[in-house]
């Protein structure tokens, strides 16, 4: 059966407060979108790896990355084909394409594509940590804490709750229909589509019946209209959690500072700028990496403290 990407492996990363992880991944997203110096982007991507390692989700991460590489390829190709701003021409096509004119492939465009691939890798890698180490339930608690409307969160949680149930339903209904001679993998395409639709139709009808019963049960347990409610479970913030949260948000602030003061930028067009960084940029890069890595340190501290 298809299951959640989340597995509780009990590592310090898994035990981190979900808010901190959300903030951390969010910071990386902002940084990745703001920075365009390839060195910064590379370092940003690399700084997600120790966390992946600490969370022991290498295998899952690798399978995600395989898929991402296709996207990277697309990024490089498109940038190479569409951008004619570069000055080092590597290849000039002898034909014209409507809209685009004759494609000119320049060194600058390829380097830009590679840098953007790093941007994508950093983002996907950071969010993979969320997917693999935060339980959907905790994600929803975080949504409630962020004052997102409760009913939307409830709908999401209800939906998540019924996924295993509906997978069981599908399995049963599929057995029923196969016993009645429906062939799912053989025969003409229209035949197969019809076979599948008989399953989906039964599933949909069953689920609508479930919806009435779920609503009845909710009413019976005092789910009334628009009044206040309390929340029993909550994400608790210890001192360490707050510290972690601050460190998870700092990179975001740093990113905005760099954007406003134009650090971490790089000139791609018309000719590539020098790869060398100014002193202050080296400092900012080091600062970024260290702040991003603090999360691991704090995760270990938290585990220690929780054990005591």
């Amino acid at each position, binding site marked *: 059966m298809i299951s959640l990407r989340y597995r509780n492996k009990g590592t310090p990363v898994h035990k981190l407060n979900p808010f901190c992880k959300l903030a951390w991944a969010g910071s990386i997203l902002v940084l990745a979108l703001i920075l365009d110096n390839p060195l910064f982007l590379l370092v940003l991507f690399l700084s997600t790896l120790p966390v992946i390692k600490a969370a022991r989700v290498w295998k899952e991460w690798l399978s995600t990355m395989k898929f991402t590489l296709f996207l990277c390829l697309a990024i490089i190709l498109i940038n190479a084909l569409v951008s004619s701003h570069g000055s080092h021409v590597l290849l000039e096509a002898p034909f014209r394409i409507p809209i685009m004119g004759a494609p000119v492939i320049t060194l600058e465009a390829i380097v830009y594509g590679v840098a953007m691939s790093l941007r994508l890798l950093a983002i996907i890698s950071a969010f993979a940590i969320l997917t693999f180490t935060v339980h*959907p*339930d905790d994600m929803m608690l975080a949504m409630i804490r962020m004052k997102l409307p409760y009913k939307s969160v*409830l709908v999401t*949680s*209800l939906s*998540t*709750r019924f996924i*295993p*149930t509906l997978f069981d*339903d599908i399995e*049963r*209904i599929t*057995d*029923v229909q*196969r*016993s*009645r*001679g*429906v*062939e799912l993998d*053989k025969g003409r395409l229209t035949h197969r589509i019809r*076979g599948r639709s*008989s*399953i989906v*139709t*039964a599933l949909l*009808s*069953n689920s609508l*019946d*479930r919806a009435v*019963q*779920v*609503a*009845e*049960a*909710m*009413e*019976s*347990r*005092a*789910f*009334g*209209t628009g*009044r*206040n*409610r*309390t*929340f*029993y*479970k*909550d994400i608790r913030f210890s001192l360490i959690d707050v510290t972690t949260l601050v460190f998870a948000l700092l990179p975001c602030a740093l990113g905005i500072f760099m954007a406003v003061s134009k650090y971490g930028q790089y000139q791609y067009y018309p000719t590539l700028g020098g790869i060398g960084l100014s002193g202050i940029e080296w400092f900012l890069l080091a600062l970024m990496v260290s702040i991003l890595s603090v999360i691991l340190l704090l995760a270990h501290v938290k585990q220690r403290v929780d054990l005591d």
Partner: protein
Amino acid sequence: MIRIEGLTFYYSGATQPSLQDINLEVNGGEFVLVTGPSGGGKSSLCRCLNGLIPHFYGGKIAGRVEVGGLDTLKHSTRELATRVGMVFQDPENQLVSLDVEREIAFGLENLAFPKELIAKRIEESLDTLGISDLRYRHLHELSGGEKQKVAIASVLALHPSILILDEPTSELDPKGAEEVLSVVTRLNDELGLTVILVEHRLDRVLQYADRLIAFNQGRITVDGKVRDIMGSCYQELLQMGVGVPPMIRLVQGLRDRGISIDGTPLTVKEGRAMLDKALHGVSGQFTRSSEGNNSKPLVETTRLWYAYPDGLTALKDISLSIGAGEFVAIIGRNASGKTTLVKHFNHLLTPTKGRVKIDGIDTRGATIAELAKKVGFVFQNPNDHLFADTVNDEITFTLKNLGFDSSEIESRTSEVLAKFNLIEYRNHYPRSLSGGEKQRVALASVLALNPKILILDEPTRGMEYRLKSELMCFLEEYRQQGNTVILVSHDVEMVAEYADRVILLSEGKIVVDGEKHDVLSQALLFSPQINRLAQAFTGYGVPNNILTVDEVLGMLS
């Protein structure tokens, strides 16, 4: 505690009332057992008691319903939730959270209780139900019985004084049902909760209930102390199709034959004492209905092993042979491999080792569709079968899948519709039919192929008595025509009544395979009530392998 005066209710759009002129009073601490045929008004009554009718359902209502001093017309379901706790039939559909703790907190949160109080209530209700170990478990990992207990706990956390359970065990296996019912009786006994329990299977709860109410066609037809009713209104209950426990049928049967019995026993223990005199002279042999079957094997498995992809070995070295015209029941605990075994008979599953032959054909060489002409498979829930717009389409769908030509489809469909009394419904939407009619449509869609072998996987779970006997009579008739019926079931009473041969599975192995009297007698868990009763009288000459009421009565004449 509950007072109902002149209650009449129509669901919106309905022309027939679902409840008609109901007057009822229930005192605090009473244990009321509610029964009657489906569609008789049991569920509607439950919904009236916590205000789902009329606040959730709308419709037309007359009369007064007062629960714990609150008029349900004027107070919402939300307000009533702290007085009336409601547990529904399907545990799956009444749980809305991802884990047990949050599930129990849900109602309390809705009522805006402070955190500390919620924590206390959770602790309390987990303990009351004895499920503290489930606290942090995810709901989808729990068994049906456990889920139902969580549902009860989540309702109890609101501290209601009345607990209503609408067929809480009909989706559960016997073990789960047993656990849930014992919890319910304990709640009534120890905490003094008023309990209103809707149930089809009376034998497990009769002794605990103070009062029995039967509904039929929207009216209360029987109301009184359990023992009195079982003595006096027995015929009426039978006519309504209520499943009267076998021992009580025996007692009444004996009375009809002029044997006097003092009182009406509700438990086997009471039965032993009360029937002592009556069965004193009974001895000899009962007539066994079936003899050995020597016909050629239709289903044959040789050294069949099956392991699920996740590594769990579900079947171990199963060798058996089932002939034409046999009625075989496969019984066993949950997860003993019953369903896994029968799924091999139409190639839904392929053996990991060993082989399965159907009518001489190795299933490995045949597709499910090819086998479908020989093997019909009816699953537990008719809703899983039904997807078409009309009953007619539902039946022709199967025939079309298997490539019958249109004149053949036409004739077979008409034939099977007539056989199952479905002609008047042929253009109806199958899912809006009643439970019994749906079951008939599902059966018809399978039997339109005229299979020689019919497999039914727990067809009677949660079914009321009358529908059960209708189905069984049909299967009996079908078997008479030389076909084979294979039934997977938990329902020992029914197996004892109708099957000839019983196969008991445990942990994927065949423990016993033989004639039903040999398998089901003296087996503690798998013995029917009459057999358990008979054990006390073997000294008088009552055979120790007797199983049914008719067998006992047959020995008298």
